[in-house]
């Protein structure tokens, strides 16, 4: 066991990603308050993204000091993992001159999520260790032991290199290789597109691909901006997966969504985290377009199987807007 004070922990370079189990308001505050006040005292940018109940606790505990804290309600700080990663990246880049670190208290909303979504959020927790490895972010992720399933708490140990307990830091004994852990949670193989799916063989004719996707998306009820963004996502996915080879594009619908598969019989993904790296204007990456697709689609799945690769895009169709 090592015992680091917050001050000495900030001296370590690179991403600091720590889990924190709490079972009461007092336990939450015992971890959160020193983290927040330590950052504010040093002139660092500090964001608390947690439940509205915990935000109230923090506000009350901090008093006047709460005026310097940035607040976000966890459920709305990135509605899906790709948007959560983008939100972290946005906060980091909004504070280029923050002295020392950028501190983020980052609680995820786990309750009420489907199994695939829970897997996706666990995968994101693992991927954060790679995506933000070279940044100044110090992130503590609180987990409420009163309401979360034991398996979610156990996997927090696999996705966070260390735990914060009170003012102490303990290495996680079960921390797992992030890319391997995330890959292991991909779930069952993607089901084949249904026989009724519209199909196109894509061999580089981007205009033809856009017409095909736009037409099929419209036939399934996708209109306006949603359709324009879906066409862009499909075009970027096709450009990424195909390079010089042919690909099969299939489009069908399921209740509430239109789905587009782009698959290539030979080849995989050069990157273990395709489309998860925040794009930089000056440093183009081959998978930047897939980042765009992940941001604008309801869900994007990437799989390698039998020597080939598939990107599956989902766009919501019949979703009511508040």
């Amino acid at each position, binding site marked *: 066991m090592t015992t680091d004070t917050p001050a000495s922990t900030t001296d370590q370079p690179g991403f600091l990603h720590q889990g924190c189990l709490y079972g009461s308001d007092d336990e939450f505050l015992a971890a959160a308050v020193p983290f927040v006040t330590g950052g504010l005292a040093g002139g660092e940018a500090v964001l608390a993204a947690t439940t509205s109940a915990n935000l109230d606790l923090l506000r009350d505990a901090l008093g006047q000091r709460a005026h310097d804290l940035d607040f976000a309600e966890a459920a709305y700080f990135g509605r899906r993992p790709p948007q959560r990663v*983008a939100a972290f*990246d*946005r906060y980091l*880049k*909004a504070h280029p001159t923050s002295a020392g670190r950028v501190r983020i208290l980052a609680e995820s909303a786990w309750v009420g999520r489907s199994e695939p979504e829970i897997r996706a959020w666990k995968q994101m927790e693992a991927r954060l260790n790679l995506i933000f490895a070279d940044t100044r972010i110090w992130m503590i992720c609180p987990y409420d032991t009163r309401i979360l399933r034991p398996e979610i708490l156990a996997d927090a140990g696999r996705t966070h290199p260390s735990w914060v307990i009170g003012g102490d830091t303990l290495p996680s004994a079960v921390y797992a290789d992030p890319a391997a852990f995330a890959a292991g949670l991909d779930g069952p193989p993607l089901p084949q597109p249904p026989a009724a799916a519209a199909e196109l063989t894509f061999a580089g004719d*981007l*205009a033809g691909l*856009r017409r095909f996707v736009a037409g099929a998306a419209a036939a399934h009820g996708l209109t306006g*901006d949603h359709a*324009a*963004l879906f*066409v*862009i996502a499909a*075009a*970027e996915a096709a*450009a990424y997966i195909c390079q010089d080879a042919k690909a099969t594009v299939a489009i069908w619908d399921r209740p509430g969504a239109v789905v587009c598969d782009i698959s290539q019989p030979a080849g995989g993904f050069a990157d273990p985290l395709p489309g998860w790296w*925040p*794009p930089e*204007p*000056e440093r*183009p990456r081959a998978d*930047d*377009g897939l*980042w*765009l697709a992940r*941001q*604008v689609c309801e869900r994007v799945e990437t799989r390698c199987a039998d020597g080939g690769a598939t990107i599956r895009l989902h766009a919501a169709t019949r979703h009511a807007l508040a």
Partner: protein
Amino acid sequence: MTAASPIGPLYDDGLLRITWLPHVTGFRVEGTVDVTSRSGLDAALAAVQQGTADVHVDLSGLEFIDMEGLRLIVRAARDFSEGRLLFLEGVPSYIHTLLNAVNWDDTPGLRCEGMSG
């Protein structure tokens, strides 16, 4: 630019058409920016890179743009000299969404009509 010396389009390949704006420094982009037409946008941005006036780019006729097309616009704005601005005008709402999705909407030198900052 006067009626006596008509200036043709900056670029026109049937998919993408770029024309000078009449009264300000800048141009109008219509159609599709993808790998086949991107050089046209690149050339138009290069043509205004050396001036001193702010640049206006009318995107109201833009039907499609890919990631690398967005990058060209954002990099052009970043490369402007201090204090010079690139105004995106008539920006379709899906372009707003894209710029937000890549976190490039607050690029120094870039002003996007209808967006804060």
